[in-house]
C-alpha cells in the first residue's frame, strides 16, 4: 500500500470518527442532564481480580442493594490519575531530556509530549474499548468505540470500589500514555518525529491495548490463567522494554556510537525527572488498588521501600566496581526499584519489597552496563536494561512472594513466566511489524546531516544554548 493511499484511508477514518462523535454529542448531553438527578448507581459485579467495568444501573438484580458512588475512592483515583500523568509530563520528559545530548533535548521532550497527545486520541477513539471492555480473551469489545455508552452515572473499578467509569478511563489512559512514552528513549537522537507520531498511534492500539486486555480485563487469557500483575510489570514495563529493544535493533546505532562519547547534557533535569517519577509512582502503584483502602496503603509502603533499596544496591555495586557512585546511577537504581515493585506492589510484604528492590538494583545495573556492552546494541537511554529487565524481575518475583500458600509458589512462578514470555513475544513481533510498516510510509531514521546537526534544529527548527 502506498503512503498516499494509506493517508487517504486514515483521513476517511478520522472524518467518519468525527461524524460519529458529533452524532453522540446529543446522547451525551442527555446523559449529563440525567446526572443532575439523585446520585447514580450501578449494579455490583462478580468479584474480579483485576479492575473491571461494572454493569449499568439498569441491570441491577432485584433485591440486591445497588452500589453507590464511593466519594473517597473517587477522590483518590482522581488524585492518582493526575499523579500518573505527572510521571510522563513532565517526569519522563525531564528524565530522558537530561540524558540526551544538548542538540537533541527539545526533540526528546517533544516526542514524550506528543505521545501524551496522540495516545489520548487513540484511547478516546478505540484504545480503551479494546483494552478494558469484555470481548474475547485476546481483545476487548467495541462497545466503547468513541466512548459511546460512557455516561456520568456508569461505575467501574474492582468490586466495591464504585468509582465513575470516567475516572477509571482517565486512570487507565495515563498508563497507556506512559507505556508508549517510555519507548522513544531506546531510539533517542535518531528517529524522525513523523515516524514517532505514527509509532505512538499504532503501538498504543495494536500492542498496548491487547496486552492490557490479556492481563487486566477479567476475561483476558492471562488474567484467566491467574497471572499476577498489580500495576503493570508485564503490561507496562516488559512490554515497553522489549518494544524499546526491538526499536533500537531495527533503527541501528547512532552515528559515532562506540567511538565518540555521547555525554548527557544535563543530569539535573534527569534528577528532577526521577524525583517526579518517584512521587508519581505512588499514584501508579497505590492507585492500582482502584480504591483508597489498605491494599493501596501497603502498595505505597512497599513502593517506597523497594525504591530505596534498589537505589542503594545500584549505588553500592557501582561504588565497588568503579570506585565512585554516580548521580545517574543512584536515580537509575531508584527507577529500577520502582519498576520491579510495580507488579508486586499489591501482593507482597515489606520484607519481600526489600528483597525485590535489592535484586532489581543489581540486575538492572548489569542490564544497563554489562549486557549492553556485551551485545553492543544502542538502547540509547537503557529502556530495555531498566524497564524490560526490571519489569521481568519484578513479575517473576511476584510469583515467589505474591502468593500466600507456599505450595503454590512453583505453579505461580510458571504462570508468571508464561505471562512475561507471552507479552514479550507479542510485543517484539508486533513492534517489529509496525516499524516495517512505518518505514515504508515515512522512513524511520533522520538523515546523516540531521543526526550530526541535532534533531532540535533540523526536525523542529529550534535549539537551546
Amino acid at each position: 500500500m502506498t503512503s498516499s493511499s494509506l493517508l487517504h484511508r486514515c483521513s476517511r477514518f478520522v472524518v467518519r470518527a468525527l461524524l460519529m462523535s458529533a452524532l453522540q454529542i446529543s446522547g451525551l448531553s442527555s446523559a449529563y442532564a440525567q446526572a443532575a438527578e439523585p446520585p447514580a448507581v450501578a449494579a455490583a459485579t462478580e468479584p474480579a481480580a483485576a479492575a473491571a467495568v461494572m454493569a449499568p444501573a439498569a441491570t441491577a438484580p432485584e433485591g440486591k442493594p445497588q452500589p453507590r458512588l464511593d466519594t473517597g475512592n473517587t477522590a483518590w483515583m482522581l488524585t492518582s490519575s493526575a499523579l500518573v500523568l505527572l510521571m510522563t509530563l513532565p517526569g519522563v520528559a525531564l528524565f530522558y531530556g537530561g540524558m540526551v545530548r544538548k542538540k537533541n533535548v527539545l526533540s526528546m521532550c517533544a516526542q514524550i509530549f506528543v505521545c501524551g497527545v496522540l495516545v489520548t486520541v487513540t484511547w478516546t477513539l478505540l484504545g480503551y474499548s479494546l483494552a478494558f471492555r469484555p470481548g474475547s480473551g485476546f481483545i476487548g469489545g467495541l462497545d466503547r468505540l468513541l466512548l459511546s455508552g460512557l455516561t456520568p452515572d456508569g461505575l467501574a473499578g474492582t468490586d466495591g470500589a464504585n468509582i465513575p467509569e470516567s475516572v477509571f478511563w482517565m486512570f487507565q489512559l495515563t498508563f497507556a500514555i506512559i507505556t508508549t512514552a517510555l519507548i522513544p528513549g531506546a531510539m533517542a537522537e535518531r528517529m524522525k518525529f513523523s515516524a514517532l507520531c505514527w509509532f505512538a498511534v499504532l503501538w498504543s492500539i495494536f500492542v498496548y491495548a491487547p496486552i492490557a486486555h490479556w492481563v487486566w480485563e477479567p476475561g483476558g487469557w492471562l488474567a484467566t490463567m491467574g497471572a499476577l500483575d498489580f500495576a503493570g510489570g508485564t503490561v507496562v514495563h516488559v512490554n515497553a522494554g522489549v518494544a524499546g529493544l526491538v526499536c533500537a535493533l531495527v533503527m541501528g546505532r547512532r552515528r559515532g556510537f562506540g567511538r565518540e562519547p555521547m555525554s548527557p547534557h544535563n543530569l539535573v533535569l534527569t534528577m528532577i525527572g526521577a524525583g517526579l517519577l518517584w512521587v508519581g509512582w505512588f499514584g501508579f502503584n497505590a492507585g492500582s488498588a482502584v480504591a483508597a483502602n489498605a491494599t493501596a496503603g501497603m502498595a505505597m509502603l512497599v513502593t517506597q521501600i523497594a525504591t530505596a533499596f534498589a537505589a542503594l544496591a545500584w549505588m553500592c555495586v557501582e561504588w565497588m566496581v568503579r570506585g565512585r557512585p554516580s548521580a545517574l546511577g543512584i536515580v537509575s537504581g531508584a527507577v529500577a526499584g520502582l519498576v520491579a515493585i510495580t507488579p508486586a506492589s499489591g501482593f507482597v510484604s515489606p520484607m519481600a519489597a526489600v528483597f525485590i528492590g535489592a535484586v532489581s538494583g543489581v540486575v538492572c545495573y548489569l542490564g544497563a552496563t554489562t549486557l549492553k556492552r556485551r551485545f553492543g546494541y544502542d538502547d540509547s537511554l537503557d529502556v530495555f536494561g531498566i524497564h524490560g529487565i526490571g519489569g521481568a524481575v519484578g513479575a517473576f518475583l511476584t510469583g515467589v512472594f505474591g502468593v500466600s500458600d507456599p505450595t503454590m509458589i512453583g505453579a505461580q512462578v510458571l504462570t508468571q513466566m508464561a505471562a512475561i514470555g507471552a507479552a514479550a513475544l507479542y510485543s517484539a513481533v508486533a513492534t517489529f511489524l509496525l516499524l516495517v510498516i512505518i518505514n515504508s510510509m515515512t522512513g524511520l531514521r533522520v538523515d546523516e546531516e540531521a543526526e550530526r546537526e541535532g534533531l532540535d534544529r533540523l526536525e523542529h527548527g529550534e535549539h537551546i544554548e
Partner: protein
Amino acid sequence: MDSDSHIYGLLGRIHVLMRRTLNRITDVEYMRINADYTREILRIAMGTESTELHELCAKLRVAMELDGPAPAAPKEKTFTFGLGGRKDPPPEEGDERYIGTLR
C-alpha cells in the same frame, strides 16, 4: 581539547552553514583530523557575512585548540571514599566514560 561530540557538533553546524551561504561542501571527518584543512575552511568561513558562522568558527578554534592549547589548570589533590575506606583518586574518566554506554 573539548570532547569529540562537542567538536563534531560545531563541525556539523559549520558544514550546514557553509553549504547554505557559499554552496561549499566541507569534509567534516577530514576537518576533525587535519588542522591545516580546518584552518583554511575557517578562513573562508570568516570571509562570509554570517555572524553565526563567525561565532561557530571562534568556538571551533577554541575547541580544537587551533591557536595552541589552553593553559593547564592547577591540579588539586582530591580523595574519594570507597566502601573499602580511603582510596587514591580513580583515573579521570572525562567524557570517555560515555563511549558506548550511558550508565
